[in-house]
């Protein structure tokens, strides 16, 4: 990787930095590119915003649909079968 990566390469580094600590050279390359590129800086912020919004503890989660009646019935039957065997 060149010492200033392209936006496409930066998106790879920014994504990977969400998952693990980058090697020193990659970390510097990422930081350098983010300092001079508004789009990539925004991309990087949005990756973090997605994580905050998406994380399970952040979700209110009670207005999403629950178990469909048919599925609930099937599961109840399976539970009954397991007890009977």
């Amino acid at each position, binding site marked *: 990787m060149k010492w200033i990566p392209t*936006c496409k*390469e930066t998106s790879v580094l920014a*994504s990977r930095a969400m998952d693990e600590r980058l090697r020193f050279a990659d970390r510097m390359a990422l930081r350098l590119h983010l300092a001079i590129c508004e789009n*990539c800086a925004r991309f990087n912020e949005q990756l973090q915003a997605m994580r905050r919004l998406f994380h*399970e503890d952040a*979700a209110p989660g009670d207005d999403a649909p629950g178990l469909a009646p048919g599925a609930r019935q099937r*599961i109840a039957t399976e539970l009954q079968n*397991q*007890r009977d065997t």
Partner: protein
Amino acid sequence: MDTLDAHTWLADHGDYLFRVARRQLHSDELAEDAVQETLLAALSAQARYTGDASPRTWLTGILKHKIVDLIRRSLREVEIPCDADGEEAVDLLFKQDGHWAGPLRPWGNPHAEAELGQLRRVLDECADRLKPVMAQVFSLREVAGMETDEICKELGITPTNCWVLLHRARLFMRQCLELNGFSKAGAA
């Protein structure tokens, strides 16, 4: 002990378990399977339930394993992740010289709970539109908060495949969110 407990679990926690599973599996059918397998496993293991944790916490712990099991099984049926389609879709987001194809709009900082709730619904809808395996790996990472090396180990995929899937998922998610009014909704 009889099945009274398992039926109570289904009544009290069925919807909750389903919602947790649905957000990570991105399929109603798989989420129903996950709930069923969780309750069946809980039923056979109920003698080991000590009551230290609430039933919901205990069941959710079992559910997490079942979710990973189901993803592992669905992975066997597909080739991951280096399909040409995915690579081409990524290429469309960038110019030939590696710059972004278009400007990225800012999202702003939504604070109102109603606004947040709406944004999360859009997030879930966008994730549902990813290819199933990509959505599932992305959700194990971002919803369940599993570490990538743990995801690779549990699912039996290489770290490189993991990075590629996550990178693509993030690019496609971002684009989907922007197309669905994220920038406007957040700009309050």
